[in-house]
């Protein structure tokens, strides 16, 4: 199966690069290569910088022709992440997907999204409205509060 072979290559690549990209930790489910977990560090100079966020990655059979399903497990206040489901609004996970992306580079794109919220295509409308109305301070403090509540210190255990 093509997807399995590809994922195995990605797995080896992740093992080889271990420690190089300290902002991303990609872990493959020991029993199922189609299920991965990622721990990403919030980017600096953002309200997420103190946090470590867990992503659940579900890889479909037709991968890499179709994108992996990625969602936040850790609660996060961000305009492009659904507050309840953790679903992410990111073009490369939908229409702009191509097999040139990898699970690793998808994680990097998610980190970039944290640093560059797109208020015009919100999944979290409350958050989007704060940004669109120019209330940057309100957005920052809400995002920081949820980062401290959900993504700091508690991560290693509560992540499962």
């Amino acid at each position: 199966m093509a997807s399995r072979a590809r994922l195995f290559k990605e797995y080896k690549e992740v093992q080889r690069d271990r420690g190089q990209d300290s902002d991303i930790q990609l872990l493959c489910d020991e029993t199922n290569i189609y299920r991965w977990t990622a721990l990403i560090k919030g980017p600096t100079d953002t309200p997420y910088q103190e946090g470590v966020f867990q992503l659940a990655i579900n890889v479909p059979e037709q991968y890499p022709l179709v994108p992996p399903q990625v969602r936040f497990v850790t609660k996060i206040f961000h305009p492009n992440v659904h507050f309840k489901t953790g679903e992410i609004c990111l073009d490369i996970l939908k229409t702009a997907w191509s097999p040139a992306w990898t699970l690793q580079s998808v994680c990097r794109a998610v980190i970039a999204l944290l640093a560059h919220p797109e208020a015009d295509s919100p999944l979290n409308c409350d958050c989007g409205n704060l940004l669109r109305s120019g209330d940057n301070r309100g957005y920052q403090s809400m995002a920081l509060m949820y980062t401290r509540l959900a993504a700091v210190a508690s991560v290693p255990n509560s992540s499962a």
Partner: protein
Amino acid sequence: MNSDGGGASEEDRPRDDEILAFHHAIRAADAEKLEFVGDKEPLSVLAAEYEAGNPVFRAKVEKLGQTYVAIRRARGDGNCFFRSFMFSYLEHILETRDETEVKRIQKNIEQSKKALIELGYQEFTFEDFLSIFVEQLDSVLPGRESSVDIDQLVEKCRDRYISDYVVMFFRFVTSAEIRKRAEFFEPFILGLSNMNVQQFCKTSVEPMGEESDHVHITALSDALGVPVRVVYLDRSVGADGKNTDVNHHDFLPPDCPTVEMPPVVLLYRPGHYDILYTREVQNLAPVPRVEEPQDLPELKGLQEAKETPVKSIQDANSTQEAIAA
């Protein structure tokens, strides 16, 4: 992009995987209507299609019959140019048994691979796609373990895995060629969209299902060194308002020996490509090729590449304008 404008409740909105599943279901339903590549049909089916249609179309379809004899449809899923190119080229090799041509294209494939790596693509992201295309190339030459006949080729080109993987390989090659010659392609891309070269490749070339334009055709034809003819069937008429000659444009890669009829001939109707067959297709002899000298300085090739296709794209542009007019 999702945008509920703040009005609709978030719960009403289908989840992404539901949207994707729905999207796949629509495509699957489409698949039952038409294979990735259809059967070879006489050109008269085209005439039947326009029987009650626009008189300019009818006149052009009739003229089309002077040069072309048959059509093979491709599924209209946004990949039709690449699927048509794939079948048309492989069928050409199957008929001509032209080993020299296969060796030549393999060299170009190696060049594309190098370009991709130089552009920062990780090899494991494209190597599976590349090897599926190379397998197909091998299978259309005679005397191989995997050699196929035309029926088997049709079957393979209708296989989702093989067809999608080859399409994806072409998308990688096209993207690499555009990015490698970004300066050359930039003005044409600006003419099509508001994107820069990199964004264009990321959003309009690399993702499956993104439709092809003359930029894609030029890039793929140049990168693989395969001439492509596109015959334009549209409602445009000549300057006198009467001329219903069918326009065509030949995409000729640099350093390509002149060919009477490119190996890949496609019929373009606004938004869609199908495969066309010329009258003499059965007794077409292998196109003699001038072997490129091995030590040709790369710079020379590049400079020529910069000059020749400028004209060709402008030609294509004027045809596009004609369509729009």
